[in-house]
């Protein structure tokens, strides 16, 4: 009987709510390790979300579709780094999803060639192959923009993720590869590859929100205040990430497993603050025809549909 009492007491103690009971949100995030998807991690390490009485449970995924599906299913509240076209496609098909912020406006991706290659700039890619990740991806749009804006005769080639692409470049299966920092910076420093172009070299990309933050419609309706508070904490975390506090670079370097110098370079050379600021979805006029061309949506969304889809939260 005494043992039973102890067991019951232990069970009750475990089941009891913790002394600090914050509002909880669940989120899926694409591409662990990228600077733009590290906002929640770094903000949490700095205690910013706790300050706003929030506790964020994160699950990292390997792609936009994988990030979006749990949001649609309602198993998580928020999704980060969802392709803008993918979010539009889901909304157009009636899925319960809303865009609550920009995740990346412009892109930090870069294109590179082997150091031994004669290709030094985009102009040299004529007649050569140039990589993008997958059909319908933002990297494909950027490569198309490179070609059209510079009138190149380069041949686009789908090569998958940065790791597979680097393999393809080093084994001469493709002439120009793509990567997203910090991936590839080590090889650049070692003199194995050199940067040929950055995504922002394409004029169209600089003003285009290519990835967004989405929320489940039901979660947004029932917990709007919590989500608005979350977005405030998110903005504060971005401010912190671009402050001169050295701890942020230490935390990011530890998170990604790179030296602090590389972590600092990722932020300073590739990710201007405006790139990850969430308050405006830009370039809808250029994104919409692209979404139709790539069969994400059958026809452009109407202004009414856009205002229902895009509901930036907590914007001051």
């Amino acid at each position, binding site marked *: 009987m005494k043992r039973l009492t102890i067991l019951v007491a232990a069970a009750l103690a475990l089941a009891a709510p913790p002394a600090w009971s914050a509002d909880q949100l669940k989120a899926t995030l694409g591409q662990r390790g990228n600077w733009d998807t590290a906002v929640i991690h770094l903000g949490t390490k700095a205690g910013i979300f706790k300050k706003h009485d929030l506790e964020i449970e994160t699950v990292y995924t390997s792609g936009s579709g994988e990030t979006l*599906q749990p949001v649609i299913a309602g198993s998580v509240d928020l999704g980060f780094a969802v392709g803008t*076209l993918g979010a539009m496609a889901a909304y157009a098909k009636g899925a319960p999803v809303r865009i609550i912020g920009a995740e990346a406006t412009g892109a930090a991706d870069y294109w590179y060639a082997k150091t031994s290659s004669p290709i030094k700039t985009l102009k040299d890619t004529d007649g050569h192959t140039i990589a993008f990740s*997958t*059909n*319908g991806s933002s990297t494909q749009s950027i490569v198309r923009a490179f070609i059209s804006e510079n009138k190149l005769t380069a041949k686009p080639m789908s090569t998958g993720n940065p790791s*597979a692409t680097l393999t393809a470049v080093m084994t001469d299966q*493709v002439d120009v590869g793509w990567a997203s920092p910090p991936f590839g910076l080590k090889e650049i420093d070692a003199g194995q590859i050199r940067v040929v172009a950055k995504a922002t070299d394409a004029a169209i990309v600089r003003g285009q929100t290519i990835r967004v933050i989405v929320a489940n419609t039901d979660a947004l309706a029932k917990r709007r205040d919590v989500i608005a508070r979350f977005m405030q904490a998110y903005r504060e975390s971005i401010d912190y990430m671009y402050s001169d506090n050295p701890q942020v670079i230490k935390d990011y370097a530890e998170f990604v497993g790179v030296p602090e110098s590389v972590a600092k370079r990722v932020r300073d050379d590739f990710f201007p603050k405006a790139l990850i600021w969430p308050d405006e979805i830009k370039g809808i006029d250029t994104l919409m025809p692209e979404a139709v061309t*790539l069969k994400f949506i059958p026809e452009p969304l109407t202004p009414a549909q856009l205002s229902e889809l895009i509901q930036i939260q907590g914007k001051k």
Partner: protein
Amino acid sequence: MTGRATRTFVPFALGFGTLVLFTLALEALIRAGLVNRFIVPLPSQIAGAFGRVIAEEDIPHRFLVTARESLWAALLLALFGIGFGVLLYRVRLLREATETWVAALASAPTVLMYPLFLVIFGRSETTIIMMGFVAGVPAVILKTIEGLAGTRRVLIDVGRSFKLSEVQLFWKILLPAALPTIFVGLRLGMIFALINIVGVEFLINFGGLGQLINDLAERYDLPGTYAAICFVILVSVVFFFLTDRIERWLRPVA
């Protein structure tokens, strides 16, 4: 209806009827809101998507690409899988040295080796075919050994009493006796091969139906995605039908 026709028709009707009932039940559950329609689309939507994906997504070509990759993988499985199986059966030392390794390979997640195959064979159909082959070959080798080793002793003795050479003994006694087990191995191997072929097409976004499934999923075209998956099942059905026909042709008595 004759007895034979009844024996053929009833199992078919039962199987097909079960499939139809399951589909109707799923349609009802989704319409009732018990299954989330944004995760599993209505079967009627999937049926409606067939025409669209065939017309807009170049399904015949993609189907042929995946079927061609599967065919090459199947041919390699038959050639090398059965060949190595026979070799291991014949050379006891080799068999004892490697059989455990082959069995271990059968349960290994070889799909994770796709980056290595990309380096060796490039971003091409060859990579996909070889990934399918590697995934399926252990089952064929093991079942070939099992089939040959399981040949009844009396049959071999009869062959020897007729003074058959080793080659004659193999072609006239051992291989026919082992064929049913070898075909079980081939079918198993093809299951693993097809899973890997479509999986690698999906992973590297290259090739036939696997790539299409990836594209459609990224576009959040769920009915289209499921319709494309049905075509993968069709590839599987075609190959199983063909292996069944080949087995019957090789064993007309069975």
